[in-house]
């Protein structure tokens, strides 16, 4: 599955469009990460637990979008965009969407 966030794929021709596909995930952090983040909050610096959380939820959202595109028979997704929102305190919602296409 080919993913890009440009409208077209450089060097390839799009032969069919299937419309918008999307994937989203809401992931909460566990208490251990929260406590570590509390400590880090005094000293400043990277919150590794939260970085991991963000990464996991991003990968999960992409996976779901790919599954949807595959179901439609597409072999690529163009114009991919990420979006985030805060549904609940302490949870990360990542939403990824794009246009499913077939390229040769």
């Amino acid at each position, binding site marked *: 599955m080919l993913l890009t966030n440009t409208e077209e794929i450089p060097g390839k021709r799009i032969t069919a469009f299937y419309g918008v596909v999307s994937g989203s995930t809401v992931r909460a952090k566990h208490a251990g990460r929260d406590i570590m983040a509390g400590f880090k*909050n005094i000293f*400043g610096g990277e919150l590794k637990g939260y970085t991991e959380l963000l*990464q996991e939820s991003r990968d999960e959202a992409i996976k779901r979008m790919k599954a949807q595109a595959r179901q439609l028979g597409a072999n690529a997704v163009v114009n991919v965009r990420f979006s985030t929102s805060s549904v609940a305190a302490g949870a*990360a919602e990542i939403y990824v969407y794009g246009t499913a296409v077939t390229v040769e």
Partner: protein
Amino acid sequence: MDALIQLIFFLTLLTLGYVFGKIAEKKHYRSIIEREKQWMQIPTTSGRRVLGTDREVKRVQLATGSVVISVDYFKRILAGLRNIFGGNVQSYETLVDRARREAVLRMKESCPQADQIINLRLETASISKGNKNQIGSVEVLAYGTAVYLYPASTAATSP
């Protein structure tokens, strides 16, 4: 007596935050500048076209990088004071600057073989927003399309 203990506790946190925060920021900036030099070989643009080259595109791929960075206690108090007088909140300015540059660097590091990265986009998330203990942190997600080109010799034969 109770108030005194609280004051001492507060001041200790403040000093700890100041000292360690300063060290962490300096160290981070040094690493950012060094790595930015190292990754200069991958030109990155927020434009949509492949940057001036006549070499043909071999393949493309989505590249992402993300980071969550928090501000230290001292700076958080300082920013709180800033809220009264208004003006530049410099302690948060360096925070977002570090986070954005770090996210872009991680994106580049995720595809070391790429020739260019086009259509760079930056997005901020909020895991800790609305948390009661007020974690002052910024979460940045950088993504773009990594472009792999054919070596120059094959492009020379095509026109």
